[in-house]
């Protein structure tokens, strides 16, 4: 089964780069939903044998990351009637190049990390790349909703890294983490909804009244 996890991980990186290049908010959310689906598949592909633990973790991840959260964010878009992202603080071409650099950095760092046993050689570099790209999206986009998408990608990257310890971190903790992320994005979505109501736009760069 060497090929299937590799394919999934490659698709994860491609989806990261795709989020960096797309302007439509709905595309961003759909790509992250697809990413959540891929992430849900990974524990099933990486585990030597299927246990209740892995199956329920996979199911929980798919439900939260691929179905509930994207659906909720789509609702937020509809409410806000926002379609497109405006030119980000870094520029689309620059952010794509930054993303490519981040992927290169991630692979370089991962090759130096002393990891004793990993299920798949690509797991750590892809997790670091996803992390960095999530951070890039979070910090360089103007629309508040895209920042939430960036946060989701960041969490996906950390989740990927957590898969290297899939057997060692107990089930309860993983459920707790999933739940936290769910509630976090839920609250963020509510705040985004209110931001749109108050400011009539989702442009986070307009939030500038408080300063010293």
């Amino acid at each position, binding site marked *: 089964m060497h090929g299937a996890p590799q394919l999934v991980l490659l698709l994860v990186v491609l989806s990261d780069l795709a989020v960096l290049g797309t302007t439509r908010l709905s595309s961003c959310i759909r790509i992250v939903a697809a990413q959540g689906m891929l992430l849900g598949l990974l524990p099933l592909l990486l585990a030597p044998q299927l246990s209740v633990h892995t199956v329920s973790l996979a199911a929980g991840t798919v439900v939260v990351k691929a179905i509930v959260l994207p659906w909720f964010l789509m609702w937020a878009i509809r409410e806000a009637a926002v379609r497109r992202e405006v030119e980000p603080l870094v520029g689309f071409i620059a952010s794509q190049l930054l993303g490519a650099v981040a992927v290169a950095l991630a692979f370089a760092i991962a090759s130096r*990390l*002393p*990891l*004793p*046993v990993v299920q798949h050689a690509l797991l750590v570099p892809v997790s670091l790349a996803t*992390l960095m790209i999530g*951070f890039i999206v*979070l910090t360089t986009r103007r629309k*508040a909703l895209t*920042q939430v998408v960036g*946060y989701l990608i*960041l*969490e996906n990257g*950390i989740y990927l*890294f*957590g898969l*290297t*310890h899939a057997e*060692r*971190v*107990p089930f309860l*903790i993983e459920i*707790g*983490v999933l739940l*936290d992320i769910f*509630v*976090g994005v839920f*609250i*963020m979505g509510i*705040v985004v909804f*209110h*931001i749109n109501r*108050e*400011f009539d736009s989702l442009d*986070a760069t307009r*939030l*500038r*009244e*408080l300063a*010293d």
Partner: protein
Amino acid sequence: MRLLALCGIPLVTALVVLVLPVFRGRRVPVALLGVVAAVHLALVTSLWVTPAPEALGGWLAADPLGLTVLTVTSVLFLVTVTYAVGYLRHDRPRSGQVFAGCLLAFLSAASLVALAHHLAMLWVGMEATTLSVAPLIFLRRDRRSLEATWKYLVISSVGIALALLGTFFLASAQVDVAGRPLVLPDLLAHARELHPAWLRAAFLFLLVGFGTKMGLAPMHTWKPDTYGEAPSLVSGLMAGALTGCAFLGVARVTEVMMAAGLEGFAQPVLIGFGLVSLAAAAAFIIGQGDVKRLLAYSSVEHMGLLVLGLGLGGVGTYGSMLHLVNNGLSKGWVFLVTGNLVLATGSATAAGNRGLVRTLPVSAVLLVLGLFAVTGSPPFGLFMSEFTLLRAAIDAGHPWIAAVMLLALAVIFVGMAALVLGIALGEPPPGVVPVRESPWLVAGPIALAAAVLMLGVYIPGPLHDVLARAAVALGGRGP
């Protein structure tokens, strides 16, 4: 059993409040909050009398470090609830259900953080505290609080995500080492066998991640906005209790680093963050016009002092623990008094408030005394803890750190005094009438002030014992 109750009772009550339709509407069930707070404090007191056994197979336990944070949280929560009785008569939140539910969820999450010995569970609790406080910041539903909530959410979420990564790094450090993964006693027992590269990376990420929650510079940018826009009693809880919980996260990983013999790496980093926080606080306090933002920067300063004490080692760790208690109580005190200010005049800025001594005499006195307390003047408790930190700096052979500390504290005192004295003294603006200060509104702050005053003069035996044991666990010693 008691440990599970400490976390479970507030959580169950929170769920009940948030779900049952009988609680919908604007009325806040203060009586229920009071009952839960009293029960919680009673349970915590019982932990001081008779130690509780571990729960959940070692995942929950009350060690000296956690007990200190838990006690401060519980006391602050009870005082805040009593204050809320008076506060809510003047200013009702739009949703009493959300208000009460989030407060209870916060208490439960903070208890979880204090008692957690499984570091991933600590993380879950920490994230829960972040999320439970967010709706409370947003209580006024206006543009400024919305902006503050958004910044808080984004920055805190990134910080917490980094902390999660750090937790996973810690698990990586434990690969091929005996012991249950991420369980603190096992980590400490086998600390010397942990993989040093992963451990160092974990320390850095956990420090930055939990430091963001604490409000260490340079990750503190959310603090002034959040403390400034949230209702004062929420800011007080955050400044006193939430920062303590976040500090606990940093302290736990420091424990592991000390046990692993990596203090040479950890201490300079901690000292660095501490000094940067002091400098940032001093820089931004000058010319500050809003009391709550001023207190936010003061909180940054005190977080810097906490981390500095950890980094200095020796008696500095005892100083940090003592400072944790003192800071928690005094921040609660000053924020609650500021709440009175806001209730009376509608704002906490210098422009809107002058001559407080005539309009709100008791609050004005408490505010001025609070100024002295928070800036570390004797006879208040913070003087003792800061003095201990100075001693630690000189003991460790770094007198220049003591000099920087003193300079920063002096600048901060000047900045704070300018604003607070300007508010308290002078002529009130025309048209402002003296406001009746109900006992509910001042009883809490007076109690906290008395406690801080007492800690400046005399530290009760059991408290001293617990703080000293916590200091030893962190690689230092008692005085």
